[in-house]
């Protein structure tokens, strides 16, 4: 049995996620949906910069999705976009240095690492394992032994 205090201490830890988006240079404002672990945090037109917070369990794999939708590819909407200004998981900032870890599935098949979304589609990033194990790997911290 774990000591009760120890159990409490180690079981009450969370991961804090913060996403900041804005409409960039858009004339026609973009429709955007942001979700984390299937929880929708935002799903409407981006009128002003949005700072979105979410908390997940320490051991929960994390899935973050930012979607630009309903963009009409007209001259007027040419600059419509979503800019992911910041994405922090605890104190780890992914923008701009780690954008290559994200996948951007879009209707123009644009593949380059980016944090600006000018095409309809979903920018997503998944840890697929507890965040700090994932961080160890992406930061190339060497071996991560498994029992």
């Amino acid at each position, binding site marked *: *049995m774990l*000591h009760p205090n*120890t159990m409490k201490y180690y079981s009450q*830890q969370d991961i804090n996620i913060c996403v900041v988006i804005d409409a960039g240079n858009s004339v026609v404002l973009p429709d955007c949906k942001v979700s984390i672990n299937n929880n929708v945090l935002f799903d409407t037109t981006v009128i002003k910069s949005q700072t979105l917070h979410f908390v997940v369990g320490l051991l929960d794999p994390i899935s973050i999705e930012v979607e630009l939708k309903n963009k009409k590819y007209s001259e007027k909407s040419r600059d419509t976009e979503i800019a992911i200004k910041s994405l922090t998981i605890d104190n780890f900032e992914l923008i701009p240095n780690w954008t290559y870890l994200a996948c951007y599935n879009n209707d123009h098949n644009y593949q380059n690492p980016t944090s600006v979304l000018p095409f309809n589609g979903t920018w997503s990033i998944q840890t697929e394992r507890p965040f700090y194990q994932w961080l160890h790997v992406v930061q190339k911290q060497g*071996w991560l*032994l498994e*029992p």
Partner: protein
Amino acid sequence: MMNINPGNFCPSPWFHMHIQPSGKLKFCRWQHQSIGHLESDLTQENFLKYFQEEMSTIRMDMLQGNSIPACTECFTMENHNKISGRESQLLKVGIKRDNFDKTFRSSTFYNEFVKSSEKSGHTDLWPQDWQIDLGNQCNSNCIFCSPQYSSKLAAEFRKIGITNQMPLRNWTDDSNAVDHFVELLTQSKKLAYLHFLGGETVIIPAFKKILTELISRNLHRSISIGFTTNLTVWDQSVVDLLTQFKEVNLGLSVECLHPINDYLRWPSKINQVERTIEKWLNVAKDPQWLIHLRTTPTMFSIKHLTTIYEYAYKNSIGVESCNFLERPECLRMNVLPMHLRVKFADDIQQWINSKSIPKSNEKIINFRDPNLLKQYIIKDAESYVKYLLDAPDETHRLADTISYIKKLEKSRGNTILDYVTSEYNEILQSAGY
């Protein structure tokens, strides 16, 4: 019950084990005091019994936050901002000291810590990370070494009366023990890393035998190996075996690129040592081995330590010293008077300042990351500056230094005065040299 103390917790006893030259088992390669016991019968069963059962007390101490006297070398390193073995081992299971609580709970080994806490420290795991001291067979008499790790020094010490005792027989002289050990490795679950030390690894027959066996059992494709060599010998057949492994960490033992290296690592010759370093660098180019110059700075080599850093920096290889020299006490850097320590610290600091590496307060624990090698070298150099300035004064050992080196010099027919500058002459003579 777990009552983890982040200041001294180490996960090493859940995945690491160390065999000393005599076959004595230890729970850690950095372990200060030996608390294992000699197995008269090094069978697979006994290896596992030691790891899973006898190391339970160490695991329980870790889980209960107890201070473990055998771990003091790591704490000394941490006090001087040198990367400790404990920090390296923590990182291997995803735990970082600067974010201990969250990374501890997220560790790949967390459930194993819990299980052990419920079973009085027992684990069902097998070692994944070994240090294997093959024996003391060695062709060198390094003055800071010990008979346990050098057969030549053992003979010399006995001849000149430093000791009457000879070290115990090498465990690898027993071919059955080697066979049992290879069998254990073959059956190991999640085996990851084997680090071999001698004596001199390249000349010890068991090194070649174990490498050959690992290859024949196809383990060379899945595990990493490391070894340390003294740069005075070359055996192409061993090199040919090594190049078959998926990853090799090579430690090249050298104190400095100055003739005093010959005095310290007697009877090596610095020109030959440098040529051998180049040969290893050539071998290591294609398979992309990880190479480190391994040093054990003493009061005589610290003056020239920057030659090691400079070589490593230029060639993009690492520098590694497992700890600050403990024994022989009379060769420690802090036996030097403070004015020389300050001078040598200043020399190292000037070398650091000459490099255009962005200064960072962040510790680089994964010193095997090729992208961070230069930053790591700088950090390592900084730890020696701090040690030189902060370590307690031990000038009272100077008389022992003189006594020790004079005994060796009488046997070897050399003199330290041929290798050192006037600043050393003064202190040696003032202490009765």
